């Protein structure tokens, strides 16, 4: 029992080490992060301005609601980009710096290694998403009288588990293909959002894309967050979103770890863990 506790404690300390390392890196690259955040704000503003553009063409609709609708899509897109980016860097950045072999030969289990990476990504991503949402809301003086921000955060937190599971699967790509893996990860991220109704209802998509949307956690996350912020729905009112998110999360995490393990074994068999670049 004592030995088991020792191992568990060591695993938690190891996962904390991943968080600690990413905190150091964020500190060292803080101006790069600031620049990237400003770019994201600008990008988000251009998307939300689309609602203003439609209004100026004479179409009558609730422009405040539509701008909030677009803003939620842009913030979730940015959040997912951060999550996938950090998980992709599990391999890509470490390979670039040459530390990957030292990390992979440490006695930390891969599950806790990736858990540490995912935990930091969620923390960093949520802080950034809140800032992004706040800055854009102030810029457009958006009004959200019915918003239930607590319920929106709960949906985002539950969805994050599924996002991490899928992110782990995509993070294996740079392990298998050092040259093309990262780009393939971006394709996965983009595809996930396109079928999930990032700036439009899923119902406008072709049938085959609507079918794919059923398996994407982003579909339920976007729908749930919009219901919470635009309609003020509470956590208990959103079982249609939360239950599928939990199911996808329960499946995607073990599946992600299994896929990563396969990728790691492939890399070890073919000598692809080595530094390149």
């Amino acid at each position: 029992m004592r030995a088991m506790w020792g191992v568990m404690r060591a695993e938690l300390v190891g996962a904390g080490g991943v968080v600690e390392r990413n905190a150091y890196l964020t500190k060292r690259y803080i101006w790069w992060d600031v620049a990237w955040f400003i770019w994201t704000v600008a990008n988000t503003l251009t998307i939300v301005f689309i609602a203003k553009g439609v209004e100026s063409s004479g179409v009558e609709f609730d422009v405040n609601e539509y701008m909030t609708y677009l803003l939620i899509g842009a913030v979730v897109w940015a959040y997912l980009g951060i999550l996938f980016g950090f998980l992709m860097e599990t391999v890509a950045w470490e390979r670039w710096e040459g530390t990957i072999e030292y990390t992979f030969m440490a006695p930390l289990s891969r599950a806790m290694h990736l858990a540490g990476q995912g935990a930091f990504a969620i923390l960093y991503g949520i802080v950034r998403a809140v800032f992004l949402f706040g800055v854009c809301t102030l810029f457009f003086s958006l009004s959200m009288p019915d918003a239930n921000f607590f319920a929106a955060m709960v949906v985002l937190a539950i969805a994050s588990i599924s996002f991490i599971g899928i992110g782990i699967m995509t993070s294996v790509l740079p392990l298998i293909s050092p040259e093309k893996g990262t780009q393939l990860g971006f394709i996965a991220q983009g595809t996930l959002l396109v079928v999930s109704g990032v700036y439009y209802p899923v119902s406008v998509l072709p049938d085959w894309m609507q079918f794919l949307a059923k398996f994407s956690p982003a579909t339920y996350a976007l729908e749930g967050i919009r219901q919470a912020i635009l309609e003020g729905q509470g956590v208990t009112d959103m079982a249609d979103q939360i239950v599928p998110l939990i199911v996808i999360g329960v499946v995607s995490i073990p599946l992600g770890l299994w896929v990563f393990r396969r990728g790691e074994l492939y890399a070890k068999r073919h000598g692809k863990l080595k530094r390149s670049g």
Partner: protein
Amino acid sequence: MIDIQEAVMGVVPVQKGLAVEVRELRKEFRRKVSRKSGEKRTRVALDGVSFTMDKGETVAILGQNGSGKSTLVRLLSTLLLPDGGSARIFGYDVVSDERAVRRLVNRVSVEASFFKKMSSSENLGYASRFYGMTSKQTKHKIPEILERVGFPSDRRGEPMEALSRGMQQKVALARALLTSPVLLLLDEPTTGLDPRSKLEVQEFIREIRDTHDSTILLCTHDLDEAEALANRVGILDRGRLLALEPADDLKRRYDSSTLEEAFFAATGREFEAEGDDDDDREVFA
């Protein structure tokens, strides 16, 4: 040196008997040479290598670039899977008991390999967490170990990219020792260093060998380094271990007065000076 490891990682009993037991170890790599035809070239990196090491022993493996030295180190560090044969570290198989092996082994390679924007203290800090060491445990240990390797205390906060190769290699040695390995794998730790840094690193390896209970496998280009530091010297050529004996026995066996002559007699090839064969290394080493 295993006390901290046992305290924080749970017990990994170091089994009695041989420290390293390698039997008929084989590894080959395939590389696509033509995109059109899909033709692949195969190169045998290790070809049935067998040897053993006793606890506390230092063994040097001499070999040219591409001879299989780094492949051997990677296999023993669980970073590669063998295509045949077996390797055991203190009784633990590198494939089936990889977690136990990882707790017992650490490595210093030719590239220091750090997050370049982070300082030496930060790099050592997070790396030690992967071995279960808390910040409380490393608060004093990191400065102590950096001091032992001769790293100036006023440069601990500087990013790694601001340090010389010699300094970086000292931090790499500190990183390896911080985790108290019972088997230390040194893969050309002094290659590319200036003469002074080289001597300092060698002196530190000598200190580890003489004062700690670590077993050391040193893969090197440097004949003098091998002779000075190792109890036995092996010659690895094109993936095959041709000999592994005390340096004097090796010279006697090949009727040579120097290790360089012995190497030539064993392999039929001149011993190259240190060179950069990254292309070859990238694919096969």
